[in-house]
């Protein structure tokens, strides 16, 4: 069974006909080719598939594509503006906020959501917010540092 949906993905209007049982992660990756969003655990625990829906972070592996009808999705591909990286991306590069990189898109999107709400979070606030974004290389110190220093790159 298919359903037509209209939404915005990274600011662009998208119209598509999707099977009702299509997950948002698969819609983004396979239908739209936005492979920045990764699938890790598939049960909403690891945070690799973190995307923003109307600014709220959610797990794309727990969302149906049909849920997105009429909404505004931001993926990691949507963070850079006019070819310039988002401050949080610059900070992750500058302060080495990643090791193998598989969790990084999710980390960066979750960090962006935090900084939108709280531009100068302290370490405790970062840990509390990022608790659901797992890094199996355990590179947490650098991730926390990158988020804490992201404000340096904001204009």
């Amino acid at each position, binding site marked *: 069974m298919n359903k037509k949906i209209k939404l915005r993905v990274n600011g662009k209007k998208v119209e598509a006909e999707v099977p*009702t049982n299509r997950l948002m992660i698969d819609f983004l990756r396979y239908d739209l080719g936005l492979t920045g969003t990764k699938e890790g655990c598939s049960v909403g625990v690891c945070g690799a598939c973190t995307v923003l829906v109307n600014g709220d*972070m959610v797990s794309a592996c727990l*969302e*149906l594509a049909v849920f997105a009808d009429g909404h505004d999705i931001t993926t990691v591909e949507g963070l850079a503006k006019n070819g310039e990286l988002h401050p949080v991306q610059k900070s992750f590069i500058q302060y080495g906020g990643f090791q193998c990189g598989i969790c990084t898109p999710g980390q960066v999107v979750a960090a962006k959501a935090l900084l939108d709400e709280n531009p100068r979070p302290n370490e405790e606030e970062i840990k509390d*917010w990022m608790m*659901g974004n797992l890094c199996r290389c355990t590179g947490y110190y650098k991730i926390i540092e990158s988020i804490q220093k992201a404000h340096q790159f904001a204009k």
Partner: protein
Amino acid sequence: MIPFEYRTPKNLKEVHATLKEFGSDAKLIAGGTALVIMMKQRLVRPTCLVSLRSVRGLNSIELKDGGLRIGGLATHREVESSALVRRRLPLLAETYHHVATIRVRNRATVGGGLAHADPNQDPPPTLIALGATVKATSPNGSRVIPLDEFFTDYYETVLNLDEIITELNIPKMATNTGAAYLKFLPRTADDYATVSAAAVLTLDKSHKIIHDVRIALGSVGTTPIRATAAEDLLRGQPVKAEAFAEAGEKAKEAVDPVSDFRGSAGYKKEMAGVFVRRALEKALANIRQLAKAKPAAKTTKKTVKKRRKR
């Protein structure tokens, strides 16, 4: 996931009509954080998903008779970050904050969480201890169900197929009352509790006698469990550390945990006793804290009133 029909009714009347059309093959979906996983695992195979996401007006959080009224579609995140909840009942905000991660709390709804009825959830023990009720609405009207009579078995409740949780009501706390929720988390911060316990304790005017108490536990049975025998032991008794320890011992008789990777059944039973005692101690500390803060609380009340007049 097997294919299914997807409907987005705009109001309760349309929701009920769609439920009637598909009967027991339909499933309501709101946040979907639990149901989507169960559908992926093919534990649940509905032929129609009836989405509540387009239904408006069921996510408000407001004062009602001095207590709180929370719409069934309010998200966990809305409850934990509500200024009203944080001011009137900080324990409730704290309890909802304990649930999983922000991604889940952004989606999971208050009504959906309760209807899901997983005995490992955080909100039920706190809500049962606070004497909360839910309002369930069917095409024939609504009924009010006390939460300590709501859960019947693992993932099962007293709700009928055509009933939807439209409201959660938490009554005003009596004076000289303190409340606490403790979640024993030996593994990771986003895990389910190994054992959880909530206590709401009311003292008499002299602060020496226990006037009333409600104790509830999570993760130690097929439903959240209210420890009524432990409550009976405390009512009318003087406030003493020994009494709390005895109540913890008594609460152990009410639980029936299973062994899993969070601990053996025997260990969880022991911890249930320990955490009931600690929850009672924390609730008592909460009363003393509130009593100390009272003069300050009065001034805040006045300023709130003044603001309202403007």
